[in-house]
């Protein structure tokens, strides 16, 4: 979840900080520069861990301040793909869940990654809200607001900064309206897609209940009972009857390699990636009348 990153940065030290010790002054500047900010592909900066070296102190001609080059380590929040993290519910709508860690709010659980099979019902406590309910062995397990929710990191995306493009005025107007309707969400520089669709994920209270009924390691989800050994090698019968992605290696969603995942920055997903590229057999649930 938290990783250290080593960074070198050249910064200008304003003269009003010269009365402070150099280390403290530079640390203060670095904190104002990096803290609570997302660095592309590195994650959200949580804290300055330490300063390794400070070089320079050169005053450029015409500048009233000294310029230093500092090497330092930052504590970054960068979960690796496959990590299990506990979070709290922030929003629950028909498009899925939004979870929050308190310091990081852009965690989304889209519909295809919900525990399956599920149904939705209007939330009695929140107006316009939706409550997601997992159906298991004829029992209903709702995702409610009280519990801690465990999710597995499915992807971590760093969307590029939106750039306004100059276009013809008429086109622009109509497009602006469209885009306003489409995404009302403010821009988020780092978005985590979480998955709840595996044993042991979801509200922690679920697994207390289930394990009471059965020894936990024997808990089998309905899909597993259909005769497949593991969820990942489950064969989806395509529309023509051919099995697609029978081999786990072919699956686009298998980002979890044998290598230790957090040793590298996750590879970027293809541009045309969408949540619907995920597990094909789940789409069968979505289109099969679950969401009519």
């Amino acid at each position, binding site marked *: *979840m*938290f*990783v*250290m*990153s*080593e*960074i*070198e*940065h050249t910064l200008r030290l304003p003269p009003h900080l010269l009365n402070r010790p150099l280390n403290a002054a530079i640390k203060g500047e670095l*904190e104002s520069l990096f*803290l*609570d900010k997302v*660095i592309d*592909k*590195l994650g959200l900066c*949580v*804290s300055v*861990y330490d300063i390794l070296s400070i070089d320079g102190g050169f005053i450029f001609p015409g500048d009233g301040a000294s310029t230093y080059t500092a*090497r330092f*380590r930052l*504590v970054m*929040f960068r979960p*690796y793909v*496959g*990590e*299990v*993290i*506990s979070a709290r519910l922030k929003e629950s709508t028909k498009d899925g869940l939004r979870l929050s*860690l*308190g*310091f990081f709010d852009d965690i989304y659980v889209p519909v295809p990654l919900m525990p399956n099979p599920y149904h939705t019902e209007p939330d009695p406590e929140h107006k316009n809200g939706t409550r997601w309910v997992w159906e298991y062995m004829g029992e209903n397990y709702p995702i409610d607001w009280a519990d801690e929710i*465990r999710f*597995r990191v499915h992807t971590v995306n760093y969307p590029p900064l939106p750039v306004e493009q100059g276009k013809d005025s008429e086109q622009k107007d109509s497009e602006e309206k469209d885009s306003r309707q489409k995404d009302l969400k403010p821009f988020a520089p780092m978005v985590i897609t979480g998955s709840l669709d*595996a*044993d*042991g*994920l979801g509200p*922690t209270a679920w*697994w*207390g209940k*289930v*394990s*009471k009924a059965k*020894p*936990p*390691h024997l*808990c089998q989800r309905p899909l597993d009972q259909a005769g497949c050994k*593991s969820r990942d090698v489950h064969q989806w019968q395509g529309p023509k009857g051919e099995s697609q992605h029978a081999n786990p290696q072919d699956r686009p969603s298998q980002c*979890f390699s044998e290598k*230790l*995942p*957090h*040793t*590298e*920055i996750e590879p970027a997903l293809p541009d045309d990636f969408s949540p619907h590229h995920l597990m094909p057999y789940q789409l069968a649930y979505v289109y099969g009348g679950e969401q009519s």
Partner: protein
Amino acid sequence: MKILQSNAGVLTNCEVLELLKSRGAGKYPTRVIAAVAPSEFKVYDYLEQTVASKQTIEIIRKFVEDCKKYDLANGEMLNVVNIRPSSAVEIDPIIQDCDSRMGDRIDEFLENVVQVLPPHPSQLESNEDTAEDKEETTDDQ
């Protein structure tokens, strides 16, 4: 800005919490004048709610030493320490191919986790439940 090393080391939740505490983060009302940024306080608040609040570096060292024999990847070990699963079904999503790799040793591993890592106050109740479950299953056999 130049990124020299994107991954210069992995920190457990407990280590981050200790770091923030050493900076002066704590549960007192005078947060405004502390030398800790508001964003750091948010992280502190989150970590204080997790099991990391009860862990110490020594406990984690001991746990990692004890669990070397299970041949887990570092990431999995880190995740187990951060989450502290209290039942086998909670371990399942953390460890890849849990069934084939752990097999029957999962109960032994779970016992290790439960004994070495201190529980969260809210987990105490559920622990008793799982203990009861175990007794029941042994009775059945």
